[in-house]
């Protein structure tokens, strides 16, 4: 079964767990915590995992190539970069959903966009170069789509530690 088919037909009854080698698991788990910022970062992680640097780099590249990892690199904190960042939601009738998705996604300020099962059915993250850019972008999305955008900026951050143990 392809990953796409799995996504469109999720089943609660038999979760399909992918097969990873012990080394792949170790790399996925270790590198989500972050590369040490040392003079020889890959070698230091390779030493920790008991493999050669070449082996680590080869496996890391393969995990990126096959889509297991979407990215390996710096994770930026947009708020600390002086820009604007928010979560926003919209309520879009089914008959307009595909059209509005295309309109919303056409904005480069839209970093992620998810469909969710709720009356508010479209949820996206907006990232702008300046804090003022958020309100301005929301106005442009409302005027292009004709639907209101509910702005839900974070008022307080309690914790962020996205980590998937495999």
């Amino acid at each position, binding site marked *: 079964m392809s*990953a796409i088919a799995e996504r469109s037909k*999720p089943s*609660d009854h038999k*979760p*399909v*767990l*992918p097969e990873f080698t012990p080394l792949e698991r170790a*790399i996925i788990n270790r590198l989500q*915590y*972050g590369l040490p*910022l040392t*003079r*020889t*970062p*890959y070698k230091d992680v390779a030493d920790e995992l008991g493999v050669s*640097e070449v082996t680590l*780099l080869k496996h890391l*590249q393969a995990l990126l190539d096959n*889509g*297991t*990892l*979407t*990215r*390996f*690199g*710096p*994770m*930026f*904190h947009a*708020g*600390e*970069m*002086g*820009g604007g960042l928010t*979560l926003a939601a919209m309520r879009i009738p089914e008959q307009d959903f595909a059209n509005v*998705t295309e309109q*919303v*996604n056409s904005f*480069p300020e839209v*970093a*992620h*966009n*998810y*469909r*969710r*099962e709720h009356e508010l059915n479209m*949820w*996206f993250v907006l*990232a702008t170069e300046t804090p003022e850019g958020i309100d301005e972008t929301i106005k442009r999305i409302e005027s292009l789509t004709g639907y209101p955008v509910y702005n*839900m*900026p*974070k*008022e307080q951050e*309690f*914790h*962020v*530690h*996205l980590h*998937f143990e*495999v």
Partner: protein
Amino acid sequence: MSTFTSKSDSVLSARDRELIVATQSGLPLVSDPWAELGKQLDMPADEVLTRFQRMQATGVIRRVAAVPDHYRLGFRFNGMTVWDVSDDAIAELGEKIGCLPFVSHCYRRPRHLPYWSYNLFAMVHGVSRDEVEHKAAQIREVLGDACTGQTILYSSAILKKTGLRLKKQTDKQ
């Protein structure tokens, strides 16, 4: 010269910005990534590393890390659990929810009455809907009487996922 002043009073210089633009799609997978970037940007390798260390220390960079496709790892159920928590209690309870090991992001956000009464968001991932619901029940227990409403929004499709991107700055403004 183009600079960004961050909340923590650090300054993202034009050179830092060049490093961000050069690595936002990924860090070079070579033995010496700092030298590789230095070659691209005409900067000594040690300076590249020092700038990365400083950006991480000031919080501009959370970390240099692998970002998995959680679907590919088997975590196919991504539940945004949302809670209506009394304003008096949310600061203290939010901290507690954020400390639960299975909560990946936890934020306080504004209500939009009458459509949206939830002010605490906690993201939970699982290999099944049951697992997400079991985790949500543990959150419910911590919140207790301070919580008067809740729901879970599952994602049914990723419509876009490009991550945060800075544009290349060609003009100095």
